[in-house]
């Protein structure tokens, strides 16, 4: 039985903004340079969007829970490096992938435990683990790049299924469906939202806050690890620069996708749209011959607009109120 309410909400104004912006970006950039619509470019957009969407989907849950995970970028890097090292030691590919995802489970578990045991705000705890995980990466690689010699591993991500759909997109769609089900159709998913919406009510309803918190951080850890594995497969090498800054991209796609930073809501479809939007803009600036040095400026501006829209949507019902 479908859930019409959830579907309606998914398509509601929140994600519509990102979707409309996405269409506008396509129209504008293809008008500037028709190369924007080339298969190569579109494939690039889809693969890059898929990778950021997967981490973004996990982050959507964390933000819906009124938390933040700043360590996702470093988890991406760690998973990619772990996979590269294992592959270079001749470990079979399936075991490498499972281990890579297990890295995500482990690091997510660490984040979750730090938050519930030390009662740290999630962004502080994950800021610390971000630094520690990065340090671990440097210790393992000695700051060098590990080459990935597995054609199959790369093909899993970059090959085109049926000649047109990038495999990465298929993975992202599967992750989307899975997380959508978890988010909207399992008690765990609703408890995540309840904690972000009103933690007192969640406690009163008998929800095990600690368990749900740890679960959510494990989930985002696995998502990040998967993104990291895909990045490594795409680049065919791994070093500590994989995932650098990815935490900001992940937060950006969630917010631009219409999920409010104050928690209590999550818009998974919007996150996917926003991932496509940001990837399109990045590729568009590239084909329009705008220096990549401007990318960050553009992304920052988009983030400000998205936050403004979020503020307007929540309604500054009372005038003269500033939230600092």
């Amino acid at each position: 039985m479908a859930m019409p309410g959830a579907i309606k909400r998914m398509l509601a104004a929140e994600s519509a903004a990102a979707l409309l912006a996405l269409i506008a970006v396509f129209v504008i950039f293809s008008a500037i340079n028709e190369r924007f619509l080339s298969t190569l470019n579109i494939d690039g957009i889809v693969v890059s969007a898929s990778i950021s969407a997967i981490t973004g989907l996990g982050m959507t849950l964390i933000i819906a829970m009124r938390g933040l995970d700043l360590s996702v970028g470093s988890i991406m890097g760690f998973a990619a490096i772990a996979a590269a090292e294992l592959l270079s030691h001749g470990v079979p590919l399936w075991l490498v992938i499972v281990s890579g995802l297990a890295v995500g489970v482990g690091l997510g578990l660490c984040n979750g435990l730090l938050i519930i045991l030390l009662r740290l705000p999630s962004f502080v705890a994950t800021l610390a683990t971000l630094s520690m995980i990065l340090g671990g990466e440097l210790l393992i690689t000695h700051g060098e790049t590990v080459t990935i010699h597995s054609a199959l591993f790369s093909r899993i991500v970059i090959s085109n299924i049926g000649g047109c759909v990038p495999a990465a997109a298929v993975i992202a769609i599967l992750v989307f469906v899975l997380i959508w089900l978890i988010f909207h159709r399992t008690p765990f998913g609703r408890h995540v939202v309840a904690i972000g919406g009103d933690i007192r009510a969640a406690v009163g309803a008998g929800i095990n806050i600690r368990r749900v918190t740890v679960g959510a951080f494990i989930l985002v850890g696995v998502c990040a690890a998967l993104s990291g594995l895909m990045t490594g497969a795409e680049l065919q090498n791994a070093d500590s620069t994989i995932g650098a800054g990815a935490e900001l991209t992940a937060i950006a796609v969630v917010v631009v996708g219409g999920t409010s930073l104050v928690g209590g809501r999550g818009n998974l479809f919007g996150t996917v749209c926003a991932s496509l939007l940001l990837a399109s803009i990045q590729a568009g600036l590239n084909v329009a011959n705008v220096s990549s040095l401007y990318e960050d400026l553009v992304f920052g501006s988009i983030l400000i607009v998205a936050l403004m829209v979020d503020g307007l949507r929540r309604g500054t019902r009372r005038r003269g109120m500033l939230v600092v």
Partner: protein
Amino acid sequence: MVSGAGGLANGSDTHSDTHLDTWATPSEGGQSEVLVRATGMRKHFDGVEVLHGVDLELRSGQVHALLGENGAGKSTIINLLSGRLRPDGGQIEVYGAPVEFRNPLAARRAGISVIAQELELVPTLSIVENVFLGVEPTRHWLIRWADARRTVVTVLEELGVNAKPDQIVGSMSIADQQLVEIAKAIVGQFRVLIMDEPTSALNLSDTQRLFKIVRRLRATGVAILYVSHRLWEVFDLADRITVLRDGQRILSTGIAEIDVDGVIRAMLGSKSSLMGMAARPSRATVPAAPTAPPALALDAVQSGEVLHDISLSVHAGQVIGLAGVLGSGRTELVEAIYGLRRIDAGTVRLNGKAVELREPKEALRHGAFLLPEDRKLEGIFGHFDVRENVILSFDPSAKKVRKSSESGGSETATLQRRRSGLTPIHLQTERKAFETMRKALGIRCSRPEDRITALSGGNQQKALFARAALSHPNVLLLSEPTRGVDVGAKEEIYSAIDRFAEQGIAVLVSSSELSELLRLSAHIYVLRAGRIVAQVSAEGTSEGDILKLMAG
């Protein structure tokens, strides 16, 4: 009763399955079955015992009213019965079997549901999601939303709530949100319902609707513990009354065996003398010279769709009341005067000067101070201690602290020099100012460093009055000044308001309690659908007269 789809989680860690079976069958006719028996309940905080061995018995098909002043131990009892606190002594039995609630979930599993004063709903979730929060019916890990929704539709219908199960709870009125809480209890097939001040935010018709529902629940054999400050409600609804005072049970009796006076005497004990003051004290009529402009004057004020053509005036030293049902514009009017709501047309004059109020700080600069309706949300700073909360808008450079018993008109000139953010305040001055206020208003706290949230509602409100006094307003705006405050503290707040007026402060009181308006104010403006429909003198007017005007 409606059978919940999936209902409450099966299994319990506090008692055996046989007891759960007993829960499933409501008592037939036998109204005297004891569902919950608490004996010798003790609890202390920081070494101070606040509950000295209280007994309480909840029977099926009975509304049991729990009364007492703030601090008498009502909340503590509720928290013990709902697993939010663990007793230091005593025994709770459910269906005759001793239980120990380690957390709220354990109490819920034992069939005890609490509707707290601050509703425990997730505003961003829908009705059905809230009703089934924590007890979602699942199959193969997935929630069966269709079943859940069907159940909720039936229950909402039964409760007379006109809403779709997918409606987001935050968009509903407080009254309807409360019914969502009741729907939660019905769906969970709870046999014991604890209601803490359920009517404090409801208007008359919503209260009547709630009473009907409570009576129906009682008829199905639910045991209800009903906590309220409104005595008439209790006598309307309850079968049994228990009065607590200072952590002890003073009396527990059938409703037929006692009257209002008896209950008040039991609640107040030696303090009953306070009740003598409950009658409106004869007060000298407005001392202000007729030539002086009113401290607050509104002329044909209009605000959006909620306020139309509002004209009123409050002179220095006057207390003026605002009456009206929820949605009449009563609350909105006060907000507009304080700059919280756009004024589209008309003028507001403070001390004779037309002012444009875009935000509260401008109202403050002109000497107006608002004590908000929602104390928790807009009034107190929960992270701060009592002293910090009181001292917040204190400006020692403006004026020496005025003992509120001493008189002296307030001068607008002093208000011009509101403290700039960086001027340091002497801790000593601050302490003295706080002490003065604490004594003058009778704020009961063990130390000034107590978190304000540790105080009872009445004392929190007094702290806000102290804050108001320290900001030396000449217009004091009050919205529901005694919401959630018990009889004794109420009277103290009333006399504080009297003293504000005696000092020449113009006071505008908006309240849903008519007795309060009649007790406090000289004149009462009655609002209906955003307009002032009448202005009556408190003298010789009855609550019934005003009710009629409010209803139109």
